[in-house]
């Protein structure tokens, strides 16, 4: 009666789940002064979860499918699981000092973060609607709590509540769409839906279902017009949580969107293509224009991440209009963009955490002269912000390059129009990214800046490690783009199939 289970394929998830349970138990029984052990165990657990991933990557078994094709470990899943593990690792590193300085519960913080990482890992492998939904919820639910972590702080409460209310609305939309799909096709697995739904692309109920699903994931990836929660939530949430939200949580939403649209609705691209086109154009334009007026660094990053989501959606829209080869290219372009974005955005948030500690403020004006008293941090800030802007030779430009490549490759006038919108927005984005760097290096130290010893205090070791690792990836990938494209090409299996 026992179902056939490939324990190696499940090993990363099992490792994370066990770690999370151990962290929670440790927290219960450790005295208050020794709670830092929870952080150590969490970091170790995430590191160990990477080991079976490597074993799976080098094994020559090929794709491993389980549970009737609901859970598949292929190259696509492995690349994204790797990304989630590394991003989770970096966020954990950022959190250590940050959480310790707060007087709130540490054990639960790491437990919830690990659970969210676990959810994103499952998500990368899920190939049916129910597994996908459970995974998406597992990613989001801990985040509702984590956003409100500083429960004495009104902004944090607001962040949590806004995120929660809009998040559950998104989940409801998503479920509604999924139930329509199930009702119309009688299938739950993506392969089954693709087969059953082949002739149904024109049915109004089917169109509505797809639009509901896109709207649901639109909230998760914070694309305009579903982005309203993002700036307030990022600002109120603890900064490492905001980093996680803007990277892993968003990437998870994109992965889900990719998998659903490409493998469940390949024949309905005439429906989702235009919808994604509009989302992409709106996200880029509105978010960039709003970001220009931001004075708070975290809000600026929030709008920037909404705009980046728009850039990531461009290859999606392109994929709708091309053949199978173009589809693979577009798919790889999105994955490339997600991978690179993850590192540069994590780096940017890590720099913000370090900078906020030194300057004592999140206002960009207060950061004047940071370069003069913390030159290394200032330089790294420049690296990440210029990379986000897409300036060569940093990694961000490759992301933009493949994105434009996919859009132009499609060749249709609509896609060229979208590429033009993207190009204009890239220029707008440069303005506000450069403004931050200009403030850091060119402006004088403001009178409100804290004492000399606060400003020159060294950055916490784990945070420094997080910044260093992200910076290394951003710079090296900029010089050797083949490193990233090697991984993203592996993901074409899903689209090419």
């Amino acid at each position, binding site marked *: *009666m*026992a179902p056939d289970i490939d324990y190696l394929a499940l090993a990363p998830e099992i490792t994370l789940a066990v770690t999370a*349970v151990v962290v929670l*138990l440790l927290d*219960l029984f450790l005295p*208050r002064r020794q709670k830092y052990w929870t952080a150590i165990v969490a970091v170790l657990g995430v590191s160990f979860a990477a080991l079976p991933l490597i074993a799976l990557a080098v094994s020559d078994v090929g794709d491993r499918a389980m549970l009737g094709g609901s859970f598949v470990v292929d190259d696509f899943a492995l690349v994204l699981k790797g990304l989630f593990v590394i991003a989770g690792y970096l966020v954990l590193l950022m959190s250590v000092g940050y959480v310790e300085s707060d007087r709130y519960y540490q054990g639960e913080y790491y437990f919830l973060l690990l659970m969210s990482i676990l959810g994103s890992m499952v998500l990368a492998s899920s190939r049916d609607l129910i597994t996908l939904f459970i995974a998406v919820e597992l990613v989001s639910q801990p985040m509702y709590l984590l956003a409100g972590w500083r429960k004495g702080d009104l902004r944090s409460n607001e962040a949590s509540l806004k995120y929660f209310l809009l998040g559950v609305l998104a989940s409801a939309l998503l479920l509604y769409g999924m139930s329509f799909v199930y009702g119309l096709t009688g299938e739950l697995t993506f392969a089954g839906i693709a087969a059953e739904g082949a002739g149904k692309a024109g049915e109004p109920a089917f169109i509505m279902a797809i639009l509901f699903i896109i709207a649901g994931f639109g909230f998760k990836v914070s694309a305009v017009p579903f982005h309203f929660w993002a700036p307030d939530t990022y600002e109120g949430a603890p900064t490492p949580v905001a980093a996680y939200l803007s990277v892993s949580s968003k990437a998870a939403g994109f992965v889900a969107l990719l998998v659903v649209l490409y493998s469940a609705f390949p024949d309905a691209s005439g429906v989702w293509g235009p919808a994604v086109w509009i989302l992409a154009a709106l996200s880029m334009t509105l978010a960039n224009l709003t970001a220009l007026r931001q004075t708070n660094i975290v809000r600026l990053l929030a709008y920037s991440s909404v705009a980046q989501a728009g850039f990531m959606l461009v290859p999606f829209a392109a994929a709708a209009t091309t053949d199978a080869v173009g589809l693979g290219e577009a798919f790889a372009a999105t994955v490339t963009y997600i991978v690179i974005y993850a590192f540069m955005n994590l780096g940017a948030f890590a720099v913000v955490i370090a900078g906020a500690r030194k300057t004592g403020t999140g206002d960009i004006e207060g950061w004047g002269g940071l370069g003069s008293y913390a030159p290394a941090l200032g330089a790294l800030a420049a690296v990440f912000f210029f990379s986000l802007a897409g300036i060569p030779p940093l990694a961000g430009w490759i992301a933009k390059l493949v994105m434009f490549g996919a859009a132009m490759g499609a060749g249709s006038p609509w896609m060229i129009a979208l590429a033009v919108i993207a190009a204009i927005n890239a220029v707008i984005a440069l303005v506000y990214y450069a403004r931050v760097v200009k403030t850091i290096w060119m402006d004088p130290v403001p009178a409100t800046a804290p004492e000399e010893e606060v400003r020159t205090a060294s950055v916490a070791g784990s945070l420094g490690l997080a910044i260093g690792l992200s910076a290394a990836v951003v710079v090296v990938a900029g010089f050797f783009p083949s490193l990233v494209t090697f991984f993203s090409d592996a993901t074409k299996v899903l689209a090419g199939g």
Partner: protein
Amino acid sequence: MNLADYLPIAIMLLLVIVFAGASIGLGNLLGPRRPTPEKLAPYECGIVPELEPSQRFPVKFYLVAMLFVIFDIEIIFLFAWAVRFRELGWFGLAAVGIFTALVIETLGYVWKRGALDWNIPRRARYRLSHDVADEEAA
């Protein structure tokens, strides 16, 4: 499932409703009806009530309700497994064992965090057991 199995239950349902309705109606007919303002006021041991009953409860009741949802759903899963206990063998036992271990962990967590304490307020209990006061003084 055979719907006819539920016929006796439906008949009983009807019978009870008729019985209750009839006897309460009969009580209405046979009993006197002499309302006075005092009689119709909410009972409060003889004094005239001045305040409406509060619409807010201690949050603990909500906590109990949420915990109940966790445990009740767990029990339903266990019943599904228990019916097929023999067929599922050790695999089912191991799976349910892991599941139950997680539930026990949940119980331990809420227990240790004080969600099940109804005597001393949680904050006071935490202070007593963790010496937070000393730490703050230091």
